[in-house]
Each structure stands twice: as structure tokens, then as C-alpha cells.
């Protein structure tokens, strides 16, 4: 190896490591404070890591605060949204890809147009409507607005369009109903698209703050991001340890899932970029 190349590699390695450290800084600080004893949090001297592991912050966050409730709400909302999204999107995508009918182009056009609408744009009218029928501050308020997913329909349609239609014709000859074809043949075939979509949807809604902040004021319904703000605003400044433990607990599920299935995660979230 030439000295020039060695120098180049060392330099790029050093810069990449410094960058990685900067990326990790808030994670390290969060985990470190979560494990630090109270007195070590409140010192003015730099101490990156705790001197001993203190579990009491996690115990406190899990037993004396509503964090478990927030996590449960998060699971209910995220699973509810995903289930309805798939229930609505897959039959529509299948019909768009493999059936000929009047209005097909129009509906696909609607799907493409809907892709252009960010959720923020629809928030005010949906809030008004939900207030009118009195379902603000319910799980339904958190789930319903996300049921129609143009991105999901688009993704499934593109995927199913590549499946040869003879496959479905064969199933028809065997006497399967169209509904059975959608769920017993098309959906299992579209599993790769479903995985990417699920990762995208779960991440987006577990992390969302905008809509939960608008649709709910009841802390019993708070999703994790909304909940941690309740917790932060209630504590008077001496519960930093448990607060960081709560932040770590809320971040952990997705981060762990990402570390376990990196390739799928990256693909799912990169595909989500199409949605804008």
C-alpha cells in the first residue's frame, strides 16, 4: 500500500468515526443519564458514562409513571392503523392491477393525486368533522384518518402488476371468489411489498406527534411521543433520570427492530421517501 493511500484511508476513517460519534451523541447521553444515579446527573463536571449502573430510573419510569400506558396506546394505534390500511388497500390494489372496469383509470388517478397531499393539509377539516360527530379523544380519532393510504395502494398495485394474471385466472377456474383470490393468493404473493409498507407505516405512526397532539387531550390516550411530552411537562426538573429512561424505552422498539432487520428497514423507509 502506498503511503498516500494509507493516509487517505486513515483520514476518511477518522472523519467517519467523528461523524458517527456526533450521530451517537444524543443516544449515548440519553442512555447514560437513564443509568446514572441522581447525584451524578446533577453535577456540572463532564462525565460521559455513569460510574455504576442504576436501574431505579427504569423502575420508576415503568411503575410510577404512565409510560407503560403510552407504549400500549402506541401498539394499539399502530396495529389498528396498519390492519385497516391493509384491509382497504390490498383489494383496491388488486382490482387496479388485474381487473378491467370502467373508472379504473380515474381511480388510479385519484390514488396518484392523493399521494401529493401531505397529512398536515387535511388536519383542520378532519378535526372539525371529528369534533362534530364527537369522536375526538378516542382511539378511533387516532386511527381513522390514516386508513386511506394512497401510498399503500400504489405500492401494492405496482407489486401485483408484475404478477402474471394467468395465476389469478387459474384460481378463478378453480372456483375461488375474487375476495378469496385477494386474500389467499394476491396478498401472500405481495408479502415483500407488505413488509416494506408495514415498516414504513409502523415507523411513521409510532413516531407521529402532529395528529395525536391535535386529536387527543386525554393523557390516557397518549401515544409514546405525546406521552413523553406529558411526562416532561409534569416533572419539575428533578426526574431527569426517569425521563431519559422513558425516552429510551419509547425509542427502543423501533431501534431494536431496525438493528435486527436492517436491510428490510432501510428498504421500507427508503420506499417511504416516494410518498414525500
Amino acid at each position, binding site marked *: 500500500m502506498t503511503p498516500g493511500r494509507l493516509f487517505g484511508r486513515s483520514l476518511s476513517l477518522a472523519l467517519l468515526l467523528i461523524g458517527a460519534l456526533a450521530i451517537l451523541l444524543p443516544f449515548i447521553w440519553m442512555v447514560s443519564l437513564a443509568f446514572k444515579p441522581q447525584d451524578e446527573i446533577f453535577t456540572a463536571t463532564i462525565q460521559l458514562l455513569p460510574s455504576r449502573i442504576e436501574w431505579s430510573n427504569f423502575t420508576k419510569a415503568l411503575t410510577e409513571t404512565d409510560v407503560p400506558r403510552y407504549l400500549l396506546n402506541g401498539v394499539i394505534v399502530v396495529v389498528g392503523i396498519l390492519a385497516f390500511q391493509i384491509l*382497504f388497500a390490498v383489494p383496491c390494489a388488486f382490482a387496479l392491477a388485474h381487473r378491467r372496469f370502467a373508472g379504473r383509470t380515474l381511480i388510479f388517478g385519484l390514488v396518484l393525486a392523493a399521494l401529493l397531499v401531505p397529512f398536515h393539509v387535511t388536519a383542520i377539516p378532519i378535526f372539525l368533522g371529528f369534533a362534530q360527530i364527537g369522536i375526538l379523544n378516542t382511539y378511533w380519532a387516532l386511527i381513522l384518518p390514516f386508513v386511506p393510504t394512497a401510498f399503500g395502494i400504489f405500492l401494492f398495485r405496482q407489486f401485483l402488476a408484475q404478477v402474471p394474471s394467468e395465476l389469478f385466472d387459474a384460481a378463478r377456474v378453480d372456483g375461488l371468489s375474487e375476495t378469496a383470490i385477494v386474500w389467499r393468493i394476491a396478498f401472500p404473493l405481495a408479502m415483500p411489498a407488505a413488509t416494506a409498507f408495514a415498516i414504513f407505516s409502523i415507523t411513521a405512526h409510532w413516531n407521529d406527534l402532529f395528529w395525536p397532539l391535535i386529536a387527543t387531550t386525554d393523557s390516557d390516550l397518549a401515544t409514546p411521543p405525546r406521552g*413523553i411530552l406529558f411526562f416532561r411537562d409534569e416533572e419539575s426538573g428533578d426526574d431527569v433520570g426517569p425521563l431519559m429512561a422513558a425516552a429510551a424505552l419509547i425509542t427502543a422498539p423501533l431501534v431494536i427492530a431496525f438493528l435486527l432487520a436492517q436491510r428490510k428497514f432501510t428498504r421500507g423507509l427508503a420506499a417511504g421517501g416516494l410518498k414525500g
Partner: protein
Amino acid sequence: MRRLPLAARDALTNTWLVGPATLAMLMFIFLPVLIVAVLSFTDYQFGARSFGWIGLENYEKLFGSALGRRAITNTLLYVAIVIPAAVGLGLLVALGLHRMMDWAPQLSNVLRSVYFLPVAATLVAMSVAWQMVLHPSLGVVNQTLVGLGGEPRNWLSDRSIVLYTLAVIGIWQTVGYNMVLFLAGLVAIPPELYDAAEVDGAGGNWSRFWTVTWPMLGPTTLFVLVITATNAFRVFETVATLTQGGPAFASDTLVYALYREGFVYFKAGYASAITMVFFAVLLTLTLMQFRIVERRVHYR
């Protein structure tokens, strides 16, 4: 159902498959867009029994008032900082990690995961962590500054720097995403092109980059630019968590102003006008993105 003629049965099946999703889209996407557009020309307030038509007054207020202009210029400044930094750093990290694949593939993979971590992490929870990193006395940043003999700063409550602080967090969150897109672009460059460049005398790193890598990454770069802009324009979570637009509206942004005016002050009409302006910007960006994606397909 068996008794129905074939055509009618087919029509029923189609409605059954496509109907629910179409209806849901009309109800939760297209109807709200229409309503928000109409509301933006009224003085409607949540809970009020009536409203009046006020023409363009809401828009004049947004572009004419000091507060409205503040939200717009803050958002533009934020976007103007985040785009070049997040795209530039994303490209540099991708180039570094791509080359590292040749001599330390495992380390390269580990670093890629590290850089992508903020994309998967819950931004609100991480903002709470950032709040402690930047805490005036207990935060690691100020402690390090003081340790080095510098002056501690109020990163989140000093009017002159708060927007830059938020921009840094925005960059922190976006670099990994851009890196992944650039890495995909780099992998797609056929190695023969580098051999050809070498034959043509472009053997050095620098000339290899400018003759092969950069032109081949063109479409990717455009895509990354637009997507970064789209995401930066939507900045909300960090503002809501860390500053709530303050101090003195120094970090007020478009989406946060939309939220505050609409759902804290209940001025539905004015908030709808903010929504429409936000929508117009995002619409332009997303249409650009669509065109780039379409073009990229032809490149392959």
C-alpha cells in the same frame, strides 16, 4: 348473487374491492382538501356558529404581518441550512463508506447502521434527549465548552441561535437517510466506467469522482435534494418539543404556526391559509420528485 347477470356481478365485485378505499380517500383526503381551501377565505373559528367571507385577508395577514413573515423566513432559513448540509454530508459519508467496503467491509456496515439510527429512532423522544445534551448547565455540550475554557450558551432559548440549533438537529436526523439513497446510487454505477475513465487518463481519485461518480449520481442527487427539501419544510416535531416556536417566535415555522393558530388559538380560517401555502410548496416539490423518479426509470 348467482342469479344476477354476469356484468352486474362483475360490477358488484369491482365496487366491493375498490369502493371502500375510494370512499375513504374521498372522505379523508379530497373532501378535506376542498374544505381547507374554502375555509382559507373565511374568518371561521372552531366552535363558532357562523363565519364570514373575507377574501384574501388571511393570506395578506400571513404574508403581511411581522409574525406571519417570521414563520415563512424562519422556515426558508431552516430549509436553506438543512438542504446543503444534509445532502453534502450524506454524499460524503456514502462515498467514504462505499470505498471502505473494499478494505473494511464489516466496519463499513456497522458505521452505516450508526448513521441510519436517527432515521429509525422516535424523533420526539430523541428531541427530549437533545434537550438534555444541550441543557444550559447539565448538558454535555456546555460542560465540554466550559471544560475547554469557552462560554456556555443557551442553545434553545437564545433568540439568535435557536433556529441554527434546530437546523443541526434536522441535519443529524437526515444525513443517514440521504446516505442510504446515495449508497444505492453508488452501487448502481457500473465498474467498467471507472476502468474506461482510467484508460482515458482519469486515474486519480479526484478525476474519477468528477468524470464518473458525480455525473452518474446526477439523478440520485436531484432526488435527494428534493426529498430533503420536502422533509425540511415539514419540520414540526423538534419545534413542538424543544421551543414551541420561541423564544419570541425566533423558531416559529410554517407547520408549527399552522398548529398553533389552528389548534391552540382555534383560528381555523387563518390556519387554513397557512395550510394552503404549505400545500403549494410541498405540491411543487412532490411533483418535481415524481418527475425525477420517472426519469430515473429511463436511465436504467
